[in-house]
C-alpha cells in the first residue's frame, strides 16, 4: 500500500505542476499566430476548404510523410517480430449466420465509405487516416466472420511499398518541377481546379496524397491485424 500512496502523491505533485503551467495558457482564448495565416490564405494557396487537411497535407506535409513512415514501421516491425516459418489462422468457430451474411453484404460498402472519406478529405472532415482505418475495419470484419479468410499478402505488401514510393515520388516531382520537395505542382503550377474551390475536383495534390495515404493506411492496418491473428503451427 505504501508504494501506491507514494505513487499517488507523486502524481498529484506532477498534476499540480502541470496545472500551474497550464494556468498561463488560458482556455478558449485567441492566441493564433501562424494559424491565422493559414486560415486567411488557405483557399487561394491550396484550394482546400478544410483547413486541417490543408495544414496536414500541404503546409506541414513533411510531418505527414513522417507519420506515414511511422505506420509503415509499425507494420514492418510487427511483421518482423511475429515472423515464423509457418503460420496459420487457428480460429475454430465460424461466425454466426447473422455475422457472415451481414459481412458479405456490408464489407464492400464499408470499403466504399472509406474511399469516400479519403477522396473528400479536402472538403469534409476525415481524410486519409480515418478513411484507411475504415477500410481496415472492413477487413477486420472479414477476419471475424470467416475462419479461413486471409488477405492477399503478396499483393498487399507490394501495394504498401509501391504506394509509399508514390508518395515520395510526388514529392520528388515537386522538387523537379518547382524546385522544392513536396511542392504542390498541381495547384501552384497547373492551376488545376481554380474555379472549383469547394467542390471535388480542386485542392491541388491533396486528393492525390490522401488517396495514397488511405491505401497505405488501409493495407498496413490490415497487415497488422493479419499478423496479430495468425499463430505459429508446427509442421
Amino acid at each position: 500500500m505504501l508504494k501506491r500512496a507514494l505513487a499517488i502523491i507523486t502524481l498529484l505533485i506532477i498534476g499540480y505542476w502541470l496545472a500551474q503551467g497550464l494556468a498561463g495558457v488560458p482556455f478558449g482564448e485567441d492566441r493564433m499566430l501562424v494559424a491565422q495565416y493559414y486560415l486567411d490564405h488557405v483557399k487561394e494557396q491550396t484550394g482546400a476548404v478544410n483547413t486541417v487537411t490543408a495544414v496536414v497535407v500541404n503546409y506541414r506535409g513533411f510531418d505527414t510523410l513522417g507519420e506515414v513512415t511511422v505506420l509503415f514501421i509499425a507494420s514492418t516491425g510487427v511483421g518482423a517480430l511475429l515472423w515464423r516459418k509457418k503460420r496459420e489462422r487457428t480460429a475454430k468457430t465460424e461466425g454466426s449466420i447473422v455475422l457472415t451474411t451481414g459481412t458479405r453484404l456490408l464489407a464492400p460498402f464499408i470499403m466504399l465509405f472509406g474511399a469516400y472519406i479519403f477522396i473528400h478529405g479536402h472538403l469534409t472532415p476525415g481524410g486519409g487516416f480515418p478513411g484507411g482505418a475504415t477500410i481496415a475495419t472492413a477487413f477486420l470484419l472479414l477476419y471475424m466472420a470467416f475462419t479461413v479468410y486471409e488477405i492477399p499478402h503478396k499483393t498487399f505488401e507490394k501495394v504498401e511499398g509501391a504506394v509509399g514510393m508514390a508518395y515520395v515520388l510526388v514529392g520528388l516531382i515537386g522538387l523537379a518541377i518547382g524546385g522544392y520537395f513536396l511542392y504542390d505542382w498541381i495547384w501552384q503550377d497547373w492551376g488545376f481546379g481554380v474555379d472549383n474551390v469547394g467542390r471535388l475536383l480542386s485542392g491541388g495534390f491533396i486528393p492525390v496524397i490522401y488517396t495514397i495515404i488511405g491505401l497505405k493506411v488501409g493495407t498496413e492496418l490490415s497487415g497488422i491485424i493479419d499478423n496479430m491473428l495468425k499463430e505459429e503451427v508446427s509442421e
Partner: protein
Amino acid sequence: MISAYYFGAISLILIGLYAILVKKNVLKMLIGLSIMETGVNLLLVSVGYISGRSAPILSEGIGPNQAVDPIPQALVLTAIVIGVATTAMALSVAMIIYEKYGTLNVEEIRRLRG
C-alpha cells in the same frame, strides 16, 4: 480556476501514469500508456480551442475569423496515428514475452531471467 477540459486531460494523463508506475502486468501498463496518450491529445486540442468559434472548415458562412485553431488538430491527427503504431509494436513484443516466459507479470519475468 482551471477549465473542465484541462482537468479531464490532466486526469487522464495522471491515471495513465499511475497504471504505468504501479501495475505489474505488461498489458495493463500498455492500457495505461494508451490512456495517457488520449489525455495528451485532449490537452492539445483544448489548447487550440477558441470559445464561440466553429470548426476550421471554411465552406459557406464561415470566414477566417470564425474558426478555431487548425494547427493543434493537425498535430493530434499525427499523434493519434503514432500512438496506435506504438501500441501495435508493444503488443507484438508482449506476445513474444508471453511465448518465451509464459507470463506477463514483470516481477515473474525478472525472476525467471534470474
